[in-house]
């Protein structure tokens, strides 16, 4: 077994037939597959074995897909420092990987291997069985070289689940059920403020990407997101507070690492947690506990700003069909991020879709800085998932046909 996986199924089986028949799909070790080790990259869940399948896992198998194994991730899925999703996509013969996306991990992983990556609208895919960290922002993401495969995975996993009440009760949209024959009229917007955040090289690459887009039939206009920098702040405050709560249950009592030699339960908690978490997660949890216990006003303020940001982006998406942003920052490599600050720099362009819960597609091959593909994100309106993927399918099939 390569060290990309922490578990490989010796005889992977589907439980039904459907759009995923014959597809080999990997999950990450923070997704529950019954009987599999599910340590979520943390000593805090050492030796934890999932009791049930995550809803997404059961649905993939029911639609013909096989789950080949579960891949190594960063601690609790936060960031990409120790994540093997990229290697699995590139080297392990999978058709798709079901990733998790707390601040953009799925999209950045896809961009790293010049593939497509998709994060659906929050509330469209059940989180049951996902060992999460930031419940109000996290979703699954799907990465694949094939847009059609992404649509098929979405067709399988989307839709209401009685085991996740935080989902929207909208009916499941139909993915990949039709092909748009006529060229759809699409208008894209790019936020001027994002342009000013970038290096000169990144700006050139971004402009070139936008030019290619309009050349291929999607006109681009400038839009304004004057509060763009607030996305990171809001995510940092709310995300860390939610993470602090979510990780509160890892006490080393029923599973996970338990420290030896403690004199009482309180000391056992403190020592076990102190030994279990790595530096990055620990500092993120400290940050969240600080806001929870010492500066709750800031948390409340972040909640109000979040509502305002959601509204302003929704307003923009009334005027344009998609917002177009780069996926990665060249100066801030997610894999090298050692501190919470580094992580937030690396994901500054992806986390707005987590803060707003909007659907977003990472598209390869448009924003090239030197030899590096920085990736391009197409952000669509809430629950416009099927249309966003239909547009992309049409766009790429049309262009490939003319290439």
């Amino acid at each position, binding site marked *: 077994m390569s060290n990309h996986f922490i578990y490989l199924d010796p005889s992977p089986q589907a439980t039904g037939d459907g759009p995923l028949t014959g597809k080999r799909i990997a999950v990450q070790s923070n997704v*529950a597959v019954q009987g599999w080790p*599910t340590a*979520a990259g943390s000593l805090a*869940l050492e030796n*934890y074995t*999932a*009791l*049930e399948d*995550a809803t997404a896992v059961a649905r993939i198998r029911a639609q013909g897909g096989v789950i080949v194994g579960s891949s190594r991730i960063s601690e609790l899925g936060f960031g990409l420092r120790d994540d093997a999703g990229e290697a699995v996509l590139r080297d392990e013969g999978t058709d798709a990987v079901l990733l998790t996306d707390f601040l953009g991990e799925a999209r950045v992983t896809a961009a790293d291997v010049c593939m497509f990556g998709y994060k659906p609208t929050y509330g469209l895919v059940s*989180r*049951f*069985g*996902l*060992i*999460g960290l930031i*419940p*109000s922002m996290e979703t699954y993401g799907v990465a694949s070289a094939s847009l059609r495969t992404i649509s098929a995975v979405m067709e399988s996993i989307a839709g209401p689940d*009685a*085991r*996740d*009440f*935080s989902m929207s009760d909208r009916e499941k949209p139909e993915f990949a059920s039709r092909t748009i024959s006529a060229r759809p009229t699409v208008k894209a917007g790019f936020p001027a403020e994002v342009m000013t955040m970038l290096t000169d090289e990144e700006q050139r690459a971004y402009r070139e990407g936008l030019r290619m887009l309009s050349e291929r039939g999607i006109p681009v206009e400038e839009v304004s997101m004057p509060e763009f920098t607030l996305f990171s702040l809001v995510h940092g405050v709310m995300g860390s*507070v*939610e993470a*602090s*709560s979510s*990780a*509160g*249950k890892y*006490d080393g*009592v*029923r599973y996970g690492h338990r420290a030896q030699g403690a004199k009482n*339960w309180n000391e056992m*908690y403190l020592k076990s947690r102190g030994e279990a978490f790595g530096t990055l997660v620990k500092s993120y949890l400290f940050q969240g506990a600080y806001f*929870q*216990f010492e500066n*709750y006003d800031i*948390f409340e303020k972040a*909640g109000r700003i979040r509502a305002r940001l959601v509204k302003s982006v929704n307003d923009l998406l009334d005027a344009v069909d998609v917002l177009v942003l780069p996926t990665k920052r060249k100066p801030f490599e997610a894999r090298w991020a050692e501190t919470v600050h580094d992580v937030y720099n690396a994901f500054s362009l992806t986390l707005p879709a987590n803060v707003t819960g909007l659907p977003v597609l990472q598209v390869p091959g448009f924003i090239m800085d030197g030899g590096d593909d920085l990736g391009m994100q197409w952000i669509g309106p809430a629950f416009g998932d099927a249309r966003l993927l239909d547009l992309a399918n049409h766009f790429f099939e049309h262009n490939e046909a003319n290439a």
Partner: protein
Amino acid sequence: MMDYEAVIGLEIHVELNCPTKMFCDCPNRPGDEPNKNTCPICLWLPGAIPRFGYEALDKAVLACLALNCEIQEKSAFDQKVYYYPDLPKGFQLSQAHYPLARNGWLNIIGEDGQAKRLRIHHIHMEEDVAKLVHEMEGKTPISLVDFNRAGAPLIEIVTEPDMRSPHDAMEFVRLLRTQTRYAGSSECSLEAGTMRVDANISIRPRGTDQMNTKVEVKNMNSIRHVGDAIAYEIERQKESLAAGEPIVLHTRLWDPIKKVTIAMRGKFAGPCVPDPSVPPIVISREWLADKIARLPEMPTVKAERFNRQFGLSEEEAFQLCGEKETADYFEQVMAFPVPARMANHWLTTQLLPALKEREEALPASRVSPSRFAELLTLIDRNEVNANSAKTVLVRLFETDLPVRTVIEQGGFSQVSDASELEGIIAGVLEKHAAAVADYRGGNAKTLGFLIGQAMQASGGKANPKMVRELLIKTLTP
């Protein structure tokens, strides 16, 4: 010593009697074999997501309405963060920022006999935590965690600090229990742990309106203990101040054996952040109107009606309506032509004590309202006398035979046949000639003795009224 008055507020946890827990489908039976009623959600295993159950909302809303609260259109769950072995996920789901209901009240009768309104600040829903069982015997004392109670549905009633005495607090708890039981939301038993009362107590010089540092007292498992613990704590605080010791904010435990409160820990209030996984609860007017329509007639209203409709005294009606089951039973008996006050008397002095002795519940009893009414009718018609009827009533618990059959088979029919009674009386007069002479000599008290003898001679079945009349008639020259 300065004249102090107490300022008391209560925080009351009431366990709702829903069939399942609040966020999963596990049975809500905390008393079962430890850790039997658990699942990944109430054990909070990784990947589980809470699913709010609408049964809990139903029961909670009915209780809030019974306590005269305003149901809020929008309420939401927060994570109340603290770390303790009874809460392994590190937070309790509770409605800290947007409670289900606000601005309630209950009217009690104060110590001065006047009605007094005690206000409820708000009522919120929350999940119960696991139960710690401390095993102190053996080499190493250990603590065990029972998750049967984890996730059980609770409401917490937070009052305004309107109470001034142990009496006020006890009356409030009594009335709250009656109202909540009427709503059908909980059994509200302090003894069984389905109601837990914490009291916040401070004292201040009488006549001022300052709010001084309060002390929280817990662990009272009867209404009497609530009163005793508060009374003790008021005195303790007075003595502290007299000794020049300041009151500090902390929690104390009531020791029911030593009848004292014991310092436990500093009061800790953890942060509360909105829970992202439990959607906010939005209550529509139509849904609420339906709940209001489903709320049963409340005890004070019912008592007024019983007073009006059936002619019970105010006191009788108030007592009768304290328990909904009893009042409902009474009303079913009233569907038959039975005198109301007689029915009330027999119900409260005979049937209820007999049930209590047998540990049976009224609705499940073999003595159905129609059987009870039939017995009462026969008493009223002098077909069975009161003494025999008491024996018949006990037999009715053991048989489904018609009341008449039980009376006939047991030979309990009252002897109201004049010639038969005359025969019995003649025998008594012959046997007790001295008493007869005594009576005739002017000692009227002897009549009672002769009636008793005649009743005994009839095996208790004689119609006592007729015996009396016949005796007087026979003895009067």
